[in-house]
């Protein structure tokens, strides 16, 4: 690996001052009292201005639920039952609908995984981008469309004037995702939430989209919450990382910490699941066993059944989220107690 992970991102200052986004004790559940609480349980993390935070973990760990809960966009079947989401000092979970509406698409933009299904098939892409400005700035359609053209150019779509009148199905996946991004940044947000923005795209397009996000981050001083499966992206793009497992945060750390000194057996398993040759960009699928589905979580540490280092008597009990240093936390009691020392993927 070339420069150490996390260091070339530049924009990220070490945590300090008020965080832009502060998620506290977020707990998401199926209503009707599931036997066991927590599709997502007690999720806590901060995003500081200009910093990029990765949410990683295998499929079904609750990354999407967490990111959607920030803007109150959870599917109807699930509900936030505890916690708060402070954005710029306002709790988005308890504020008025009006306040929430102002935040959505305004200071917080969001990009989803499937650009095709996430764009309205009956509306031109120009109108979909213009929509944001009409809603937030009250611009007239013609004015907003003009601005939409500039935004399309900004996200790297040539002949923007012509493209404004295209419908989503007339564009490639990469183009569609650029449109999604253009709409997400139309009101110059402070925070961009991107839920696997490149997973549905070809590898070369993935790199282009990430490059675009990197540029935008630099130009707009954008903070980013990036949901991803890709540790390579985490290393290249992010400052902090939140490792989720089965609805819990397993470990939370600056990116360097994850690669040099992982403090949770799940993190270290993820690291060793990535082939070491070069800049590996592989999906995280190689840990034995599967993520337990909601309702079948173990009573103690949720990773215990798959953990190489588990000790029945100890790990069968619930584990507390423990601070190891200012910015490094783990949910593994054995690591926190100094009993277990894990190897990093990168020698420091």
């Amino acid at each position, binding site marked *: 690996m070339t420069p150490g992970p996390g260091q070339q991102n530049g924009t990220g200052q070490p945590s300090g001052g008020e965080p832009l986004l502060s998620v506290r004790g977020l707990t998401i559940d199926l209503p009707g009292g599931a036997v066991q609480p927590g599709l997502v349980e007690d999720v806590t993390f901060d995003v500081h201005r200009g910093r990029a935070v990765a949410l990683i973990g295998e499929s079904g760990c609750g990354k999407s639920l967490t990111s*959607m809960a920030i*803007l109150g*966009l959870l*599917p*109807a079947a699930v509900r936030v039952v505890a916690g708060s989401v402070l954005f710029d000092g306002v709790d988005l979970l308890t504020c008025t*609908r009006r306040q929430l*509406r*102002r*935040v*959505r*698409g*305004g200071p917080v*933009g*969001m990009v*989803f995984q*499937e650009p095709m*299904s*996430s*764009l*309205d*098939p*009956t*509306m031109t892409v120009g109108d979909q981008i213009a*929509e*944001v400005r009409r*809603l*937030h700035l009250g611009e007239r359609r013609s004015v907003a469309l003009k601005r939409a053209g500039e935004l399309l150019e900004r996200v790297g779509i040539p002949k923007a004037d012509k493209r404004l009148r295209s*419908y989503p*199905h*007339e564009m490639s996946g990469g183009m569609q995702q650029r449109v*999604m991004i253009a*709409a*997400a940044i139309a009101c110059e947000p402070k925070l961009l939430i991107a839920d696997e923005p490149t997973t549905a795209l070809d590898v070369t397009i993935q790199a282009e989209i990430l490059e675009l996000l990197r540029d935008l981050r630099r130009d707009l001083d954008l903070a980013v919450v990036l949901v991803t499966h890709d540790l390579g992206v985490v290393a290249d793009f992010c400052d902090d990382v939140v490792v989720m497992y089965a609805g819990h945060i397993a470990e939370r750390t600056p990116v360097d910490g994850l690669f040099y000194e992982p403090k949770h057996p799940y993190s270290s398993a993820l690291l060793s699941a990535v082939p070491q040759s070069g800049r590996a960009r592989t999906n995280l699928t190689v840990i034995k066993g599967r993520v337990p589905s909601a309702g079948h979580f173990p009573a103690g540490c949720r990773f215990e059944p798959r953990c190489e280092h588990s000790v029945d008597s100890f790990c069968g009990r619930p584990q507390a989220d423990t601070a190891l240093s200012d910015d490094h936390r783990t949910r593994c009691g054995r690591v926190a107690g100094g009993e277990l020392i894990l190897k990093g993927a990168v020698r420091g």
Partner: protein
Amino acid sequence: MSPRMIIRRLGGSLLVLWLVSILTFLLVQLIPGDPAEVIAGENATVAEVARIRTELGLDKPVLEQYFNWFTGVLHGDLGHSLSTNRSVVSTIAEAAPATLVITTMALLVAVVIGVSAGVAAGLTQGSWVDRAVSTLATLGIAMPSFWLAMVLVSLFALTNPWLPATGYVDIREGFGVWLSHVVLPATALGLATAAELARHTRGCVADVLTRPYVRTARARGASGAWLVRKHILRNSAIPVVTVLGLQAGRLFGGVIVVEAVFGISGLGSLAINSVLQRNYPMIQGYVLLSAVIVVLINLIVDLAYGWINPKVRTA
């Protein structure tokens, strides 16, 4: 929709109409035995049978018969009614307005009530509005239109003499009179379709609400009326329009019963009498007109579909 597509659709419609014309023509040819005798009935004299045979041209070769008949059709000549000897076209033209008006108004009733109830229910799933719409819709679908017609007549024409119980008057005799004659039959005919549409629309709206693009729109700050108008209605309309086309064809069939209850002499009674009297030229005329109307409705639905759904428009 591109001009090329419109032309293609029009071509398709014409082809269908031509095929229908062949089938209509064969209607008479396929009568077992001597069509002239069958049409004339059991007690007909030899002279009558001969008259019918020449009247229908049944003594000529089939292809020539078809050619003559089809040329007539193209010139708006469908022959003469066997019972009144009046021209088929003018007999139909006399009966058609009442039927077409009632069917169209029924469609209007169905769309206005059905779509708005369906949208309201779909947007408020689980609420009392939703439950009320679902219950009423089930009721509306279960109730036969003749019974509904009788209930409406007894409520609004007999118990409370607000509206006329029977008959149809032309709009030229005054808009108010005309409307008062149309309201009850159109409602009786349209409510079942309204119920069907309400159920379907509710389902479509409920489905659209779960779509990722609606979540995206919310993530952009859209909500309330804006969200409904810009994203939900148009997307829900795509499947609803398809059902609407099917329902319109059904209405045109159902109008026969409603005409009977309201004593309106429209196409329905004409069709029934023609069948009872084996008045084949009249039956042919009715079938052709029905085909033209159904094809026309389908064409309109196709065009509307293309207008609503950009994927079709550019395909």
